[in-house]
């Protein structure tokens, strides 16, 4: 945006080729909404799944074509979106992570009918209205604490209940928001993108079929805290607008380098924006929603959210720090040191005390956010490429772990509790081995992607004079290794409880998603060169 005199025809000319991934997703999301209204209920799922996957793959192809043909970096839409090398890497990462996420969301083999079934009561009421069935599934009372086991899973002769296919347009819109968020070149675009990515996620969290109360509670918590954090973000935007007279990132940097203005507005605005961004990235003291939402949301949604939101949020953090505040870094970096240390310590210490695997993954993500922040604070090309690589590696590992978690099931849904993992290696050696491998990757053991990623980020931090921060990071990694290894020891060296949870046989879609996650984790650990080169292909364009 600019004052009218600055808007020339050239600035408004839209570079469709550069924007192709965003446009494909946008059109795809709208088509997906239309399918939802036009097609009959029982035909929607296969069509929605095919459309969603096709849209994501097409967008990914567009990103890869642009990255490999070496098109010049451009700022499009009158400075709103910057299509540069980091943007392309982040877009590629997000879309690549979306494919296994969508497969996990669509799977119906683990839970009959899929994770997103309508409320059993509403279903029963609908059946009563139709009068097609007598007594099928209507025997559930009001759901008690801890969720109800509806009568939906039984083959009671009626038509099998169909999943909520609304999840597919939600995922596409959330992805669109994420892509726009990490490429946004001015703060108001960033704010709108933040909301476009958040609103579908709030709804997705509340759609679980089992343990409905937990799921809805997580949605309410995520929504209220998320709205609170975005209010801080937009107030920060207002202050920075007052400071610079523009919300374009490069204009803020130019204003900061120019004649003296109110530091209160600049740093007040930065602080408030950082609160909003750190909240989305679940960093340090702004992480309070993370464990509850990770645990309460359906596991497939947790996988999508954990992997993709982190990528988008850290992409935006990198861009804001580098482009808008790179020149004033000396003045604010100290405060963010404290945030990074808080994040690493909170994630590690509270992670040790967890007894639920999904909550443990959540606290581990808080610790990882601290490590990622080290890379963001090193405002150097090495810090940039290290952080980008870390995001790619972390995303695939997290999706694989959460996919594996969804396979271990007790009497009423996922086992979750760590005691359910005792002796898992005897029940299912493959699942236990894959889970161990991914946990080792999170711990940062060599030959996994986690080691390469941590090495890249820590060495960038060290080179930029942040030795104390890196030492805290190393100590925290060592402590965090304890709670990852504890799960592995539990799986291999204890006896399974006789009435313990069983391991479901995954359907093809979950199998593909998990295999993809594990394979990328291994590949990035053994042969990281290509990905590291792509991550370091260029820097931000203001």
């Amino acid at each position, binding site marked *: *945006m*600019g*004052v*009218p005199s600055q808007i020339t025809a050239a600035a408004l000319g839209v570079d469709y080729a550069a924007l192709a991934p965003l446009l494909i997703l946008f059109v795809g999301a709208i088509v997906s909404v239309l399918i939802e209204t036009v097609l009959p209920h029982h035909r929607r799922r296969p069509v929605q799944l095919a459309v969603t996957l096709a849209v994501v793959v097409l967008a990914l192809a567009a990103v890869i074509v642009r990255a490999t043909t070496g098109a010049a970096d451009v700022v499009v839409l009158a400075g709103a979106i910057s299509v540069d090398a980091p943007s392309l890497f982040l877009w590629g990462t997000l879309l690549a992570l979306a494919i296994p996420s969508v497969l996990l969301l669509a799977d119906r083999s683990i839970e009959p009918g899929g994770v997103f079934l309508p409320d059993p009561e509403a279903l029963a009421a609908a059946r009563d209205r139709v009068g097609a069935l007598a007594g099928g599934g209507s025997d559930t009372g*009001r*759901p008690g*604490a*801890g969720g109800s086991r509806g009568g939906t899973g039984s083959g009671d002769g009626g038509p099998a209940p169909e999943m909520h296919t609304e999840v597919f347009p939600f995922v596409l819109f959330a992805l669109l928001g994420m892509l726009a968020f990490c490429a946004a070149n001015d703060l*108001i675009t960033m*704010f*709108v993108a933040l*909301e476009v990515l958040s*609103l579908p996620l*709030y*709804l997705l969290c*509340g759609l679980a079929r089992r343990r*409905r*109360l*937990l799921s*809805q*509670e*997580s*949605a*309410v*918590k995520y*929504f*209220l805290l998320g*709205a*609170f954090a975005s*209010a*801080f973000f*937009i*107030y920060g*935007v*207002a*202050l920075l*607008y*007052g400071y610079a*007279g*523009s*919300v374009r990132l490069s204009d803020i940097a130019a204003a900061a380098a120019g004649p003296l203005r109110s530091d209160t507005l600049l740093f007040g605005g930065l602080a408030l924006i950082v609160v909003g961004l750190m909240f989305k990235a679940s960093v340090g003291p702004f992480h309070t929603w993370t*464990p*509850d939402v990770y*645990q*309460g949301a359906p596991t497939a949604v947790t996988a999508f959210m954990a992997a993709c939101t982190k990528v988008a949020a850290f992409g935006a953090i990198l861009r804001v720090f580098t482009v808008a505040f790179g020149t004033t870094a000396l003045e604010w970096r100290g405060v963010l040191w404290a945030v990074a240390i808080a994040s690493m310590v909170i994630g590690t210490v509270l992670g040790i*005390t967890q007894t639920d695997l999904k*909550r443990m993954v959540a606290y581990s993500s808080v610790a990882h956010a601290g490590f990622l922040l080290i890379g963001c604070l090193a405002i150097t090309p090495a810090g940039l490429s290290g952080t980008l690589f870390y995001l790619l590696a972390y995303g695939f590992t997290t999706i694989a772990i959460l996919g594996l978690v969804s396979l271990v099931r007790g009497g009423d849904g996922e086992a979750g509790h760590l005691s359910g993992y005792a002796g898992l290696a005897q029940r299912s050696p493959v699942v236990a081995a894959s889970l161990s491998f991914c946990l080792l990757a999170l711990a940062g053991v060599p030959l996994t992607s986690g080691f390469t990623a941590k090495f890249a980020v820590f060495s960038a931090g060290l080179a930029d004079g942040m030795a104390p921060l890196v030492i805290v990071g190393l100590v925290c990694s060592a402590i965090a290794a304890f709670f990852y290894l504890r799960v592995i020891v539990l799986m291999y060296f204890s006896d399974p409880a006789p009435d313990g949870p069983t391991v479901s046989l995954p359907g093809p879609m979950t199998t593909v998603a998990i295999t993809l996650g594990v394979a990328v984790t291994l590949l990035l650990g053994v042969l990281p060169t290509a990905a590291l080169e792509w991550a370091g292909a260029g820097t931000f364009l203001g």
Partner: protein
Amino acid sequence: MSPTNYLLLSALLFAIGTVGVLVRRNAIVVFMCVELMLNATNLSLVTFSRINGNLDGQVMALFVIVVAAAEVVVGLSIIMAIFRTRRTASVDDANLLKY
């Protein structure tokens, strides 16, 4: 009147909204306080637009209004859903997920 007064008013409204989010228990009231924070921001944006002498701030205020409307749709539907299963909209009662 100096435009600074409007900035102070906006900061005050934002602070009231923040305190409201922190102390109120009913999810709807908490949400209303968030809306108050967003509207305080709008006042800031419009005032800064006047001080800076360009229109960007007013345009941004319109964006914020639209986003706030979308947020109301999603927020109220989530609060409705939890109210239906729990028969209460108190955020203190939603306490199954902890530790």
